[in-house]
């Protein structure tokens, strides 16, 4: 038993560093995957794949700041692959609030739900660009690096996506 534990320790170096990275980035990776895929179950699968790849790749990055973009790039690529394989769907989560004066909150939640549905109709790359830049607040340069395209392309994708979202939300006006 001791030998097995020793072998495990040898074959999996930097386990503490790996755990730290997972704890630091798991929520954001999950959120990005959810926004792109529209389903928490799919987002969990993608996040697992992302961290399994990180485990295989190892935690030796030239700079600590390079880990985040690397993780988001892997996550977005996996999401795009997955959304190409099956049509994007959005979970219709039931909005229930126990708060007594929840009318405004309910309206806000409903708008978010509709926004998620509208996001699901966008092409995968446009959706990823909007999620990364507008929702996650990542800079255009970083989004371009993550998506493997130019900054101009990202700007164009984001503006096109926002125009489409606005049209769609206005047609369903709440």
């Amino acid at each position, binding site marked *: 038993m001791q030998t097995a534990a020793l072998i495990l320790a040898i074959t999996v170096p930097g386990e503490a560093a790996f755990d730290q990275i997972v704890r630091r980035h798991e929520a954001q990776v*999950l959120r990005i995957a959810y926004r792109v895929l529209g389903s928490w179950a799919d987002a969990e699968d993608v*996040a697992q794949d992302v961290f399994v790849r990180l485990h295989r790749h190892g935690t030796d990055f030239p700079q600590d700041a390079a880990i985040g973009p690397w993780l988001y790039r892997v996550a977005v690529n996996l999401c795009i692959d997955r959304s190409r394989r099956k049509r994007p769907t959005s979970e219709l989560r039931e909005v229930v609030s126990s708060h007594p004066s929840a009318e405004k909150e309910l309206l806000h939640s409903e708008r978010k739900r509709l*926004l998620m549905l509208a996001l699901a109709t966008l092409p995968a790359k446009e959706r990823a660009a909007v999620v990364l830049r507008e929702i996650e607040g990542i800079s255009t340069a970083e989004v371009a690096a993550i998506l493997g395209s130019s900054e101009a392309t990202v700007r164009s994708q984001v503006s096109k996506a926002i125009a489409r979202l606005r049209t769609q939300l206005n047609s369903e006006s709440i």
Partner: protein
Amino acid sequence: MNDEELQNLLRDMRDDPVPPDSLVRMRAGLEHRISRRPHWKIAAWLVSCAAVAVLALLIQRPTAVHRIADRPAFTHERQFRPPETPRVDSPTPVRQAIHRTRRRKPAEYPQLAIRIETPDPEVVILLIADQPERNF
């Protein structure tokens, strides 16, 4: 909804919390997948070691211990036969020897010359024989 409202809504989504059950499920799945890999590696390592050991045993010549163990017990009734002489078949038929007689070369003999001097000094009889069988 105008652009500003839309962008505010998008920005608002940034702070949406991840459902705790999703985080728990993701962590559990990740833990399972990562801990499974080293076990698989260990199993592969053990199998390869076993394969090498079996290969080494197969390559090794059988030892005396194995032969004694495999041999049936010795009995006095056992009759020993002289080993049969192995029949040796020549792989290719032998061709009969062809005896050829060579023509003998004629022996070379030294020429025989008999010089007979007569009373006349200017007359000399010279007898020359080139073969010894001939009689002159």
